[in-house]
């Protein structure tokens, strides 16, 4: 009887190698990839004009194709909120709840194998590779708190860990698994060469925006000023785009930095108050927060004008729109660079 494993596919090299090691032992492998909303994949490339032309690919799909396996992409945006908002094990260096995130994903994979008649789960985790979630003592925590227990096999470091059910049952030959540990990437690169994989995605920080410092600052600012930590998918998408300036507790501006961001933000014009320069070429700005009074409209326009081609003009005309309903024209003198206070700039 052919045993079946599901592999957590992040799109990086480690999950590619882990899955291949198991395929080599005659196990039928399929992939699972989770979409949290914070994934770095694609979004910013698709938004920014200068990146639009660059050939891009979804790395998880690419990995699946290299392996010749099916890939199931699962939207976990809603359920994942609780992981980000209330991580039992806390955050890493930024707002990345890596340990809780891993537990959550393995738990989802465990549910998935039960529903789909698979035998066990594999991940590309390596002991000691990342600061927090991949310490040796975290490995049993992930296995037990996810409920997967000994159905969770990490082929790249299995020899450093107690034998799992697939090994004890003889579905998998433990001797053929690896004993990688620590931060060096050399063993992975050597194995990639052995398997004939090249052109794989290089690890660039974490697998998601939550490990990014500036992104985390913007998310924290959003939470602080709303007075709660709830968020919607649109909120976290908008944190990936534009210059964020908060001149008051009541509102912030999201100002496009280039054409692609202008197009992206204009898709939100019906949901937000917005400002567009009229007399000069300039960016579109969305206003996130409470409805503005007249003096706030003037301030928001003077800030936006600062980022237009009319920044040195005596007067710039802008159009202030109220969520796509009514709009009016506003004339302001752009703020000078000094008048934009440093502590207004979120990122």
């Amino acid at each position, binding site marked *: 009887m052919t045993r079946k494993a599901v592999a957590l596919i992040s799109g990086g090299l480690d999950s590619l190698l882990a899955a291949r090691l198991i395929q080599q032992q005659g196990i039928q492998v399929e992939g699972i*990839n989770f*979409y949290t909303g914070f*994934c770095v*994949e*694609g*979004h910013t*490339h*698709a*938004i920014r004009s200068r990146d*639009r032309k660059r*050939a*891009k*690919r*979804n790395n*998880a*799909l*690419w990995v*699946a*194709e290299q392996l*010749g*396996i*099916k*890939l*199931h*992409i*699962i*939207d976990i945006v809603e359920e994942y909120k609780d992981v980000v908002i209330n991580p039992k094990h806390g955050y890493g260096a930024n707002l990345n709840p890596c340990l809780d995130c891993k537990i959550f994903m393995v738990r989802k994979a465990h549910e998935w194998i039960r529903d*789909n008649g698979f035998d066990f789960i594999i991940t590309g985790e390596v002991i000691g590779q990342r600061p927090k979630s991949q310490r040796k003592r975290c490995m049993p925590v992930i296995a037990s708190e996810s409920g997967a227990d000994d159905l969770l096999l990490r082929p790249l470091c299995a020899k450093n860990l107690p034998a799992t059910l697939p090994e004890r049952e003889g579905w998998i030959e433990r001797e053929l698994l690896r004993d990688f540990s620590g931060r060096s990437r050399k063993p992975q690169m050597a194995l990639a060469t052995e398997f004939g994989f090249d052109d794989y995605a290089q690890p660039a920080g974490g697998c998601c925006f939550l490990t990014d410092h500036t992104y985390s600052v913007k998310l924290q600012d959003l939470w602080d000023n709303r007075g709660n930590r709830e968020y919607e998918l649109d909120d976290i*998408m908008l944190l990936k785009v534009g210059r964020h300036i908060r001149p008051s507790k009541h509102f912030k501006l999201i100002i496009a930095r280039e054409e692609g961001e202008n197009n992206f933000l204009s*898709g939100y014009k019906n949901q937000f108050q917005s400002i567009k320069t009229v007399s000069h070429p300039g960016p579109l700005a969305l206003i996130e927060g409470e409805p503005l009074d007249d003096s706030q409209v003037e301030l928001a326009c003077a800030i936006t004008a600062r980022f237009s081609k009319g920044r040195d003009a005596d007067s710039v005309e802008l159009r202030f729109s109220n969520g796509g309903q009514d709009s009016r024209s506003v004339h302001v003198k752009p703020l000078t660079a000094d008048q934009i206070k440093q502590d207004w700039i979120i990122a």
Partner: protein
Amino acid sequence: MSDIVEVDARRLFCPLPVIRLQNCINKQIAGTRVRVVSTDPGSMNDIPTWCRINGHQVLESQERDREYIFLVQKGDDGSEG
């Protein structure tokens, strides 16, 4: 010819157009045709790749006014539920 099932994935970014297509295809029987419209240029790679690895066939693909339109037929093997 059976009807075509439509999936509107406009204004969504990678991998959401693929997820929308996948969730729709999973509910269909083999042979059903699904048309998906996306505005994310990444779809030009992602949708055909997803179809290839999961055993579905892209019958047509075209780009029109910054929209990417694919006509996909569900494969026999695509019964992932």
